[in-house]
């Protein structure tokens, strides 16, 4: 469900290829992204451009992944969130926890 968009010297840019991020695929997502981090050992920039909705289970998986990456002094950055998902993040204040950008192009150098 995750594809590599690009690899740079310092980061791995990934696309999440699902329209519904939910209970059904949360565990698979967590395993896959942690495996990619273990392999490449770089901060991860994850695009949710294709994701139309995300539920509490998947949000929990994102937090778990962020905790894992931060424990290795790395990071998980999110880009391309739809308006409804941004609203969900703001509603439960996860916008205070994750760095969020509009797209890969908006990332600071």
């Amino acid at each position, binding site marked *: 469900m995750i594809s590599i968009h690009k690899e740079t010297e310092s980061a791995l840019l990934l696309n999440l290829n699902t329209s519904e991020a939910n*209970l059904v695929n949360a565990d698979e997502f967590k395993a896959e992204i942690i495996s990619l981090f273990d392999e490449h050992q770089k901060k991860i920039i994850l695009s949710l451009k294709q994701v139309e909705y995300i539920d*509490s289970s998947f949000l929990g998986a994102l937090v778990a992944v962020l905790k894992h990456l931060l424990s290795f002094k790395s990071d998980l950055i999110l880009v391309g969130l739809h308006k409804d998902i941004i609203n969900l993040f703001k509603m439960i204040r996860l916008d205070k926890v994750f760095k969020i950008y509009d797209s890969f192009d908006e990332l600071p150098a």
Partner: protein
Amino acid sequence: MLVTKTFKISNSTQSQFISLRQILDFISSNLPRNCDAAEINFKLKAIITELLNNAIKHPGNVETALHVFIDYEHIRIDKTDLGKRFNPNNLIPIPNEKSGYSVQLSCDALNSVYAYIETEEFIKFYSEDNNLTNDFDINEIDEHFGLLIISKSADEFTYHHNKQSGLNTFSVNLKLF
């Protein structure tokens, strides 16, 4: 105007998503014309998704139903089942001296969720934002958001247990204006 419909929900994940779509379509087609449909639909999708997720996570091999009530000013969704009574942290029974008190269900650096035990059979859920400092510890952030999402999306979120029938009802109220 009062529109009502009951949706019987099985506990398989595939049928949950079919049910979610059917429920949202039914509600969308029956909302008053001049309400903020985008905002209402966003909140309802969040609420119903989490109610259905709760049915998958705590199946108890019982049938779950979602009852939808829409009038000019409100929408109410009741999730009912005859499974295990909701009693996290052993909230019940209530100490004899108290008529109602709050119990913290979850707390992290961002939010707290509480259950106000109004009676032995009736609980109201609510949430509060916590004061977040710049140096908060990521490991203090919770990974479970279901009750929080419903509490924040709904105008009222309650639970009722009928001792005689054993019926559990999670009820969500949303104002349309």
